C-alpha cells in the first residue's frame, strides 16, 4: 500500500482564514488538526489542535500548573476563547523559525515511510502530495489501523 492509497480528503485552511473558524473545524469534526495552505494553495504547515491550545491558554498558566486549577470551567473558557476572536490562522501559528516542519510525503511513499515521518515530526497529520497536486492527508488513526490490520499477529 502507498501513501496515495492511504490519503483521505481533508479540509484545508488558508493563512488568512479566521483562527476561530479553524478551531471550530478541529472541534466540530473531531480532527487532530488542519493543513494550512497559502494563497496559491501550496501547503505551508500543519496546525495541530495542540498548537491552538498553546495559543489560547495563557503562558503563565501553562508554566504554573497550580494556576490552571484555580479557574472554574466558565472562567477557564473565558480566559482562553476570547483570544481567538479577530485572529487569523497565521497569527496562531508559531513564528516562522519555530514553525513545524511540513510533514509531507509523495504519493509513492510506503506505509513505513509515512509512519517514520509522522513519528519523527510528532505530527498527527501527514500531507500526501506530488508537486502541486495534493492527494490528501494521512491521519495517525488511519495509519495505525492499517498497520494493526496488516500485522499477522493482530487480534483482527
Amino acid at each position, binding site marked *: 500500500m502507498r501513501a496515495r492509497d492511504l490519503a483521505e480528503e481533508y479540509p484545508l485552511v488558508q493563512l488568512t482564514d479566521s483562527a476561530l473558524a479553524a478551531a471550530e473545524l478541529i472541534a466540530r469534526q473531531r480532527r487532530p488538526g488542519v493543513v494550512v495552505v497559502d494563497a496559491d494553495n501550496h501547503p505551508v504547515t500543519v496546525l495541530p489542535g495542540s498548537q491552538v491550545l498553546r495559543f489560547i491558554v495563557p503562558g*503563565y*498558566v501553562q508554566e504554573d*500548573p*497550580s*494556576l490552571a*486549577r*484555580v479557574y472554574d470551567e466558565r*472562567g477557564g473558557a473565558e480566559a482562553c476563547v476570547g483570544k481567538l476572536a479577530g485572529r487569523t490562522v497565521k497569527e496562531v501559528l508559531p513564528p516562522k523559525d519555530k514553525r513545524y516542519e511540513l510533514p509531507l510525503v509523495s504519493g509513492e511513499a510506503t506505509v513505513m515511510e509515512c509512519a517514520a515521518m509522522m513519528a519523527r515530526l510528532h505530527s498527527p497529520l501527514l500531507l500526501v502530495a506530488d508537486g502541486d497536486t495534493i492527494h490528501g492527508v494521512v491521519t495517525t488513526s488511519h495509519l495505525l489501523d492499517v498497520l494493526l490490520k496488516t500485522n499477522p499477529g493482530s487480534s483482527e
Partner: protein
Amino acid sequence: MSISQILSIVVFVGAYILIATERVHRVAAALGGAALMLALGLTNGETAFHSLDAGVDWNVVFLLLGMMIIVGVIKQTGLFEYLAIAAAKRAKGKPFAVMVLFVIITAVASAALDNVTTVLLIAPVTFLVCDRLNLNPIPFLIAEVLASNIGGAATLIGDPPNIIIASRAGLSFNDFLIHMAPFAIFMMAVFVLVCRWLFRSAFKYDEKRVAEVMALNERDAIRDSKLLWQSMIVLALVMVGFVLHSALHVEPSVVALLGAGVLVMISKVTTEEAIADVEWETLVFFMGLFIMVGALVKTGVIGEVSKALADAVGGQPLLAVMALLGISAVLSAIVDNIPYVATMSPIVADLVAAQGGGPQAESLWWSLALGADLGGNATAVGASANVVMLGLAARNGTPISFWKFTRYGIIVAALSIALAAPYLWLRYFVLA
C-alpha cells in the same frame, strides 16, 4: 607594585568588564578569570579550594544550594499561588489593595527565599489577577520586584550579597535581623505609601470585573497538602536553626543543607525534581568569583587597596560609612551586586579591622549591605530579580523597557539610600 599584582588586576578587571558588559556569559567570564589566575600562578589549588580568606567560600555555595533545594520543593506545593489569590480576593479586587498585599507577600517571601525565586513565584499570579481585572500588569510587576529587593535586604538569606557579607564578616542570622530588618520593614512601609503616588494611573478598574477574581478557587492551587505541611514544618525548623546557629555553633550552610536533606527524604519528591530548580550556573559563578577575588587577596592587591582607603578615611568613620553606602548604591545600580560585594568584602573586612572593630566600624558592613541590596533597585540590570522579571514580562507579551523600569526604580533606590544614610548615622553614630 609587583608583576603578580599587576597580572591579577588585569585578569580581574578583564573578567569584570566581560561580566558587566555581558559580552560573554557571566559564568564563562568568572570561570575563565579563575582559570587564568590559577594558570598564571597568582593563586593555587590549596588556596583556591581550602583557604578561608582567599578561596571559594563553601559556606556561601552550600547555603545557596540548600535553600535552592528547599525552594524547589516548596514551589511544587502551590502555596504561593494560594496566598496571592486569597490576598486578591481579600482586597476585593481593588487594584491598590491588591498591589499592597502582593508587595507585602513578595517582601516577606524574599526575606526567607531568594529574590529571583520570589519573583518567579509571584509573577504568574500577578498576570492572572491583572488579566481577570483587565489591568496593566506592568506597574504591579515593577512594584513587586522593587519590594523583593527591599524585603531581601532584611535577612542573611534574603539576598546573595548578604550571604557573602555574613560569611566574610562572621555575622549571624540574628545580626541581620537586628541591624537590617528594622530598616527593611520601615522602608517597606514607606514604599507602600510611595506606590500609591508612583503607580497612581494603574489603579483605575472596572468593578464588574471583580467577580472574575472572586470566582477563582485559591484552595485548588494547593496540589499536595501533605507536601505543603512537610515543607512548612521543615522551613520553620530551618528558620529556627538560622536564628539559633550562633548559639549552636553551626554554620547557616549546614542548617540549610540539613533542611534540604530532610525535606527530600521525608517527601515523595524525587531527587531529580528536588534539584531541578538548583541554579548551578549561579553556584559556579560564585566559585569563579571567589577564586578571582582570592587571587587579589593572595597577591596583596586587596591589602593595598584597603590600606589606601583606610588612610583616606582614617579617623572619619562616618565619612567611610556614607561613602561606602553611596558608592555601593551607584555601582550596584550599574553592575551586578554579587561580584561587587564579593570584591568589596575583603576590603571592608580590612577597614573594619583597621578601625579597631566596635559598632561604628561594623556599621561599614551594614552600609555595604544596604547600598548593594537597595542600589540594585535603581536600574533594570541592578539585580538578578529585575532581569528575571523583565524576561517574564516580555514572555507574557507585556514587555518592560529598561527605561520604563529605571524611571520607577531610580526613585525608589534614591529614596531608600536617602533614608538609609540617616538610619546608619542615627543608629551607629548618634545613638550608639
